Each structure stands twice: as structure tokens, then as C-alpha cells.
């Protein structure tokens, strides 16, 4: 018996073809339903929880960074305060030294001897200023 060629084969009855399609459709629908359920009940909630975990950790990292920034800012301020204090103490020492020298000078014999001459000179300067107006 010769093999049927495509031209001689009867086309499948539409309803038989429907049933064949239905088998495929049923399988696809079942598969999709299972996949949808997996995505919705397992995978999506896991992603959501992981997102929340990242947010929580990121906030913690930010807080830690802020704390570090505050610490370094505080250290810088402390350093500048220490420098200023050092400068102040040096200036104070210099001032004390100048003050001591000044006192010593004013207490010396030469300062006292030249006092009338400095007074006369001062008077002369005042008169000149008055004349020049």
C-alpha cells in the first residue's frame, strides 16, 4: 500500500484539532497558574523583604557614615582649639616678658634723670601743634 502523500491525507476534523489544542491549552494554563503562584507567593515576597533589608542596612551605613563624619569634624575642631590655645599661651608669655622689660625700664635711673627733658620736649611739641592749628 502506498504511503499517503500530503495531497491525499484528509485534513483533521476541526473538533479533533480543538481537542488537541485543548490538551496544549490545559497544560499551558496549569503551568502558568503554578508559575504565577510561585512568583506571587514566594519570589515576589522574598524580593520585597530583601529590598527592606537593603533599605535597613543602607540607613545603618548612612548613620555610621554620619557618625564618622561627626567624629572627624570634632577632631578637626579639637585640633584648631589646641592650636589656638597654644598661640594664646605663647602670646601671653611674650606679653608678660614685654611688660616686665617695660617695668624695668621705667624703674631705671636714666629714665628718671631724663624725665625733665622729656617733659620740656612734650610741652614744646604741644605749643607747635596749637600754632599750626
Amino acid at each position, binding site marked *: 500500500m502506498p504511503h499517503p502523500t500530503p495531497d491525499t491525507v484528509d485534513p483533521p476534523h*476541526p*473538533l479533533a484539532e480543538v*481537542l488537541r489544542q485543548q490538551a496544549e491549552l*490545559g497544560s499551558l494554563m496549569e503551568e502558568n497558574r503554578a508559575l504565577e503562584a510561585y512568583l*506571587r507567593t514566594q519570589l515576589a515576597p522574598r524580593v520585597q523583604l*530583601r529590598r527592606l533589608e537593603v533599605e535597613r542596612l543602607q540607613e545603618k*551605613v548612612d548613620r555610621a557614615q554620619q557618625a*564618622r563624619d561627626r567624629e572627624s569634624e570634632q577632631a578637626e575642631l579639637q585640633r584648631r582649639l589646641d592650636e589656638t590655645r597654644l598661640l594664646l599661651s605663647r602670646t601671653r608669655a611674650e606679653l608678660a616678658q614685654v611688660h616686665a622689660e617695660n617695668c624695668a625700664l621705667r624703674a631705671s635711673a636714666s629714665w628718671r634723670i631724663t624725665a625733665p627733658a622729656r617733659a620740656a620736649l612734650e610741652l614744646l611739641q604741644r605749643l607747635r601743634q596749637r600754632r599750626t592749628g
Partner: protein
Amino acid sequence: MAVDGDSDIAVVVTCSNQGRTIEAALASLQTQTRSADRIVLVDNDSDDIHTRQVLARVRQPRLSLEHSQPRGLPEALNRGAKKSTSRYLGFLDGGDRWEPAFLQRAAAILDARPEIALVLCSPVEDGQISPARPAGFTFAEVLARGLGMVPCLMRRSLFESLGGFDSGLGDLATDHFWLSAIEQGFSAETIAQPLARRHPLSSVPCKRDRATRQWCEDRQRLLSRHETMAQKQAREILAVSERLVHEEKQRRQALGQEMHTLEATLTQLGAQVQTLEVSLRNSGVQPVDWGDLARVAPFSPLWGAERGEHIDRYYIERFLDRHRSDVRGRVLEVCDDTYTRRFGQGRVLDSDVLDIEQDNPQATIIADLARAHNIPAESYDCFILTQTLYMIYEVADALAHSFRILKPGGVLLCTLPATCRITFEHGGLDSGDFWRFTEASVRRLFAAIVPAQSFEVTVCGNVMVCAAFLQGLALHELPADVLDQTDPWHPLLYCVRAAKPGSAALDGP
């Protein structure tokens, strides 16, 4: 027959093991802008204990409850429909909810257009990632895809013309009904707006899901029942089938893509978590702050007694307080009569204290509850049995005796732990502490002894409460707003009020 537009609607709600969703379905009927005159809730052969309990306590205006055990969905639908004579009949699945405007919209169409016999709406599933396109209401579409039980409102004349739903077809009866309606020339209108929602849980316990082989067999059966019309419309059915296969393939692709995206996101988030954790550790910060809880021994091994009030007692005492009217007549309590005195003021005529230990001076009855034959049957109006059953190995026997000694109508007020440390006070590691319970095991234990509608289970606690309780922290050490947040997946304990069937034991105190 009602003539005004605000009456003459009956809604049949079917429930098949849908105890977790049925209350939402019924609540959606109470918020309709055009209300139903009659609601018939039909239990479609539910064997789940929780569902049976929910159905037993459902109370709503205009609602009646019917049982169709064990005849299946079509019988449930027919039974519900025959309980009213309304002009319009609505059908609502126990896993669906109607938006408030559904009945008004559907009834308005039937009011205004006499040629329309049926109004349908495709439910949108909550949280669905890639929903399938709603099915159209044509012979080819219904035959090729199947509609199942969709939210609808129909004229009673349609229901009666078709002789209701075919009881011999099981879950196929709805599709057979729709196909018959189309074959006989009844017109339908589909509401395009999503005026109905389907709970995602409803597709799990409900019998709607079918294996592929069952699906094919069903389609074949439907085809043979409607062969004449199917022959006539063979080309259309084939075209719809091909389109549906194509759509489902596209949906498969979309879901696959979504899965791929979610998995990639998950991997990416995992890497981000790792990086952030390393960054934190490098800064000398632990990713999880255990704080004061960073310890392997609890704060207190004594349930926090030396620190303050026990956490579990918060739930136990609130439970007993809610049911204080049950503490009356002859009351039995285990170990001492503290709760009998506290909650039974003025109602208790006589009380006993049960203990297995002979050296308990307060005990008036010495017995092992699992073998308590020495306690006469039907002796008590109330038995307060808190945090005890877990210490009895033969827990079912103990529960059986607990009911045996109750008078008919007497009440057992029982609490059982879900989470707690091992009790060393009554025998240490080798005896004296045998069980922790789950919601399912509690329901099974009680349902084995009393009808499901005779007891109710309350779940208490959440993960923070459990952690605090295990650590031995006291009640005042927990934030107040945490205590009443219930997480059924992380419970601390269960409270059960169970009434022994029979008439009330007492007329009054």
C-alpha cells in the same frame, strides 16, 4: 413581585473550604449600593474545620445558611437559588468579592434592557502579576477556555428555563449552563470594569484548579454535551483555541520574564546586602543590633516572674475576661482556683481544684487528666484549663476527659502554647512537657471531640512577643502596641472556648 428598583435580588454565595475568604465575600455584599433582599450562603461540602467554624458563626442581615453536603457545586447553586423567589439571581463564589457598585450596575442593565438575561463580570485576582485576558461570553470562548463560576446576576427566568445547574456535571455545570444559555439564544452583557475581585488564596484550597488531564476530559465532556452547536461553530472554536494557546504562550513568556527579573533582582539585592554588611563591619557596626538580646541564656528562666507579669498571662487573662460569664455554677480549675475566684465573682456556686500532685494543699481532686475516670461525668459547668495540656503526653485522652466531666452546655476555657521554653518545673527534660501546638493541630484535636461549631480558636502573639517570652522578659518590658498585633505564622499561644453540646447546664448562678 417587587417593582421598584431597590428590591427583588437574591444572591447565592457558595463556600467550599473557603473559611479564610468567605467573610470578606459576605462583607462585600453588605456594602453594595443596591443591596440584595436575600443572601443564601450555601456550604458546598466543606470539610475544613476552620471553614465549618467560620460558617457556624456567620451572622448577617437577610442571610440564611444552607448545606449541600456532599452533592457538589451545581447542587449548592441550585439549592441556594431555590431558597428565594426573587426576580434576579446573583451568584458569588466564596473566594470572590464584589465592589460596592456591582449589583447596582448589573441590576440597572437588567432593569433597562429586557433582552438581556445575564450580566457577568470577570474577577480580577488580587496581586496578580500577569493576569489572563478576561474571557468573552461567546459559545466558542466559553467552550474553549471555560468560565467557571464568575460573578453574575441573571433573571430567574433564565435559571428556570435551563433547569438550573446540571447536578451530574460537577464543577463543569457552570460552563454547561453558560453554553446552554448561549445555545438557547439568551443574551448576556459583560461589565468591562473590574467590579469583582478574587482573593489569591481562593485558588489554593478551592476545587477550581484542575490537573491538565482532568481539564482535557472536562472539555471533551462539554464538547460532547454541546456537539451540534460545536460542529456548527467548529472553525470559530478552533480559532479561539489557537488564540488562547497563543495568549497562554505569551503569558508564559511574560511570567518567565518576570521570574527572570525577580530572580536577577534577588541576586542583585543579595549582593547589595553583602556589600552593606561588609561596610558596616568595617565601621565596627554589626548588621543586626542584638543589643540587650545578645545573650544565649534568657534574662529570666522563670517566665520573667521576678521581673514582672508573665507575657502569656496577658492573653490568657484577657481571654478569660472575655468569657467571664462562662465561669459559673460548678467550676473546675487546675492547680489552684485563682481564675475561678477572679473571673467567676458571684456566679460560682462550687469549685474544685484538680492536680496530679498529691502534695498540693489546694487540690480537692487528685487525678491524671488523661486517666481521670475517678471524676464523675457531667459534673462541671466550666473547666478552666490554661497551659496544661502540653504537659500531658496523652493529650487527646486528656481533652476527652475534659469534655466528659463537663455538663451538657458546660464550657471548657482552654489555652495551649505555640511557643514557650521547656517547662522544667514539672519533671524536667524527660517528662512533664510534651507538646507545642499549631492552629491546625488545635482545631483537629477539638474537632475530634466536639462539633466544629461548638468551639472557637483565638490566635495570640507575634514574633516579637515570642522572642520576649523566650527571653523571659516581663509584660511591661514590651511596647504596649506590640501585644495586640497578631501574626498567625508566629503565634505565642491559642485560646479555645469550647461548649459541650447539649442544653445549658444552668439556668442562672
